């Protein structure tokens, strides 16, 4: 799922990232393409519109345009919004404090309710729970047989509530019996497989309402086909309004579904996607992770979490203070230490490189040119600065021979090491100075294009 969307996004965002300076027009063009990509992926047109409007608004802020890496910032905005659409957190199933936990599956014909029922039974069984399946679809020929056959394969009992020709009252009564049996016989989980129905079928939606009222399930899960088009919103909204949902299971995602239904259904109902059906076999059920899915759509490793980390580690205020100091040529070893610590906070160099697109290549390059920036080096540098007196940190010019000896002893290094640190500090100061000029900024942007 999502491959085609992912391909398009990667292309669009690559172009964005390549822009050293972003204009509103760059952004508008990229958003136009993102809009098309989302529509082609079957995301509901209203949701696409809102999505684009939100990104456009946020991207128009001066912070984005004037940041060092405007392209990256826009990418991050898109990623944030995507993750928001899919629901930030991974959502599991809610279990009842007093068993049995009653789960009701609903959805239109052919979404995959019965197959999903079998898959859920397998998951629960593996968790050591006692599961009872309830066949509650009297209309589709042999639906009960299908569930019975799945149950037999898994060695899970199936309560048959699917007498052909059963009336609405019969179906409700049979469901109540099934749940009662789960209760009486000490089952941990009861899963009800209801019949497929179109959301416009009033009578059958009423039947679902009746069942729900009668058995008060802990979970009502909408089973929906990942290949659903623009109709996903109308369908999901109707089930949510009529029956009330606690979550969604998306099926048939192992094909080349564009996955728009994920975004549409979640946005329309506000209910979390809990599982993905990824095949016909009983073990083909996966938990849904919104953040991983968002990254996968953007097709870009974890570059966005890197940006996030960088932002956390390096607040705007700090950045501004340092800028001022540089302007006044007053950057000290204390600031230098702070900088190093910030880089350190982002994670080890290896980790950071791993998060970058093409980071693997960078790592190799670093290794070839003599090992890059080893962890140990950073720790030693920090130790040396920590061994200095506050006065020394604020004014490096007073560090003479005997002070160097003391610092080396205090940090377990040598005088040569201390000399090298001061040299690095002066070089860094010079580099940061260049970076704050317009020309230097462009150079750095060039460097970051990857």
């Amino acid at each position, binding site marked *: 799922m999502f491959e085609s969307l992912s391909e398009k996004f990667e292309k669009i965002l690559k172009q964005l990232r390549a822009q050293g300076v972003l204009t509103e027009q760059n952004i508008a063009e990229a958003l136009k393409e993102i809009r098309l990509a989302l529509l082609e992926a079957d995301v509901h*047109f209203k949701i696409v519109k809102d999505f684009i409007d939100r990104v456009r608004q946020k991207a128009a802020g001066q912070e984005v345009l004037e940041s060092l890496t405007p392209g990256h910032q826009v990418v991050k905005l898109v990623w944030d919004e995507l993750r928001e659409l899919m629901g930030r957190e991974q959502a599991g199933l809610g279990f009842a404090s007093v068993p049995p936990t009653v789960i009701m599956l609903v959805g*239109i*014909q052919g979404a995959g309710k*019965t197959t999903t029922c079998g898959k859920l039974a397998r998951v629960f069984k593996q968790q050591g729970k006692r599961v009872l399946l309830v066949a509650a679809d009297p209309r589709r020929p042999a639906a009960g047989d299908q569930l019975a*056959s799945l149950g037999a394969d898994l060695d899970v009992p199936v309560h048959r509530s699917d007498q052909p020709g059963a009336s609405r009252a019969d179906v409700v009564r049979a469901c109540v019996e099934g749940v009662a049996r789960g209760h009486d016989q000490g089952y941990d989980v009861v899963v009800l497989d209801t019949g497929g129905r*179109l959301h416009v079928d009033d009578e059958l939606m009423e039947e679902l309402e009746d069942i729900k009222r009668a058995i008060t399930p802990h979970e009502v899960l909408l089973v929906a086909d990942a*290949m659903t088009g623009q109709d996903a919103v109308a369908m999901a909204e109707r089930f949510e309004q009529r029956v009330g949902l606690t979550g969604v299971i998306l099926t048939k995602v*192992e094909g080349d579904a564009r996955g728009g239904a994920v975004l549409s259904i979640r946005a329309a109902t506000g209910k979390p996607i809990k599982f993905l059906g990824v095949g016909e076999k009983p073990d083909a059920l996966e938990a849904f992770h919104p953040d991983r899915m968002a990254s996968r759509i953007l097709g870009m490793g974890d570059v966005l979490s890197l940006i996030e980390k960088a932002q956390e580690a390096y607040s705007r205020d700090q950045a501004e203070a340092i800028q001022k100091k540089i302007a006044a040529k007053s950057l000290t070893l204390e600031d230098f230490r702070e900088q190093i610590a910030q880089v350190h906070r982002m994670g080890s160099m290896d980790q950071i490189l791993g998060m970058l697109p093409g980071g693997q290549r960078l790592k190799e390059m670093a290794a070839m040119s003599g090992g890059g920036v080893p962890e140990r080096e950073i720790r030693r540098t920090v130790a040396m600065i920590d061994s200095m007196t506050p006065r020394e940190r604020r004014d490096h010019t007073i560090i003479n021979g005997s002070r160097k000896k003391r610092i080396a002893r205090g940090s377990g290094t040598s005088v040569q090491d201390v000399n090298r640190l001061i040299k690095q500090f002066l070089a860094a100061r010079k580099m940061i100075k260049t970076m704050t000029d317009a020309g230097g900024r462009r150079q750095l942007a060039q460097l970051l294009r990857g």
Partner: protein
Amino acid sequence: MNWLQRLSAGLTKTREAIRGSLDRLLGRGPDPMMLEELEAALIATDLGVRTVGRLMDRLREETYGGDPTASAQTQRLLRVLKEAILATLGACEGEPLDRMVAGGPRPFVLLAVGVNGVGKTTTLAKLAQRLRGSGKTPLLVAADTFRAAAIEQLVVWGRRVGVEVIRHRPGADPSAVVFDGLAAAKARGADVVLIDTAGRLHTKTNLMDELRKMKKVLARELPGAPHEVLLVLDATTGQNALSQARQFHKAVGVTGLALTKLDGTARGGIVVAIAEELKIPVRLIGVGEAAEDLQDFQARAFVDALLGGNADA
């Protein structure tokens, strides 16, 4: 309510959106906001971004002045839209299935294919009932030996509509079932053989190979068979239906489409894109649970339901 009314009723919202956009478009001239709104209304029918883009280009060519009243202009633009879609659908309008059966070889062999859950079994059962009603002798073949109780499902249907079902045990080679089905049809002098295959995602090459094999067996046992490879599509499916059509077509040469679940709020606009790209005719549409809800596809009626009003207005 007949199926067209029902189909139309389901599409009321879309239609209103399209008309509303057109009205406002005319009230103010070609305002980009209005065009965008109209584009959104068209996208909501699952026509697909590309088809909608083409239609919008067509509309932009139109002049907005001329006609005296806005409503007359709305009608005119609506007609432009409809004719554009009809031109695509009409270009590959096929013969109705009943006529193909009546004028075709005996037995007429139909192979139903599609992804999981689109309604292959139900469609075949309804088709069997319809053929039986018109005096033919159909035979159902349960070649979905994979999904649990798929055979039982067809058997129950067979009993319900009074049509014999040829079947094997679950897990049997579907090609073997097909072979037997054909032999039985010849022996019994059946007019039509309707073969129900297992749902498979079009991306699974091994399962598509299995279909190819079934088709090969058919052609070997009865030259010219299958006479129709019917791809069943779910109208609630979005752009993925195009991918399904491409892959199934590549594997077994689809000759007709059936569009199911049109009785909900889904529009099934994607068939226009399929018609445009693959030139495969839509034969049947499913607009309800009852046997008579399986209808022959009529391009004009479909477009009317899609965009609203009748095309002559």
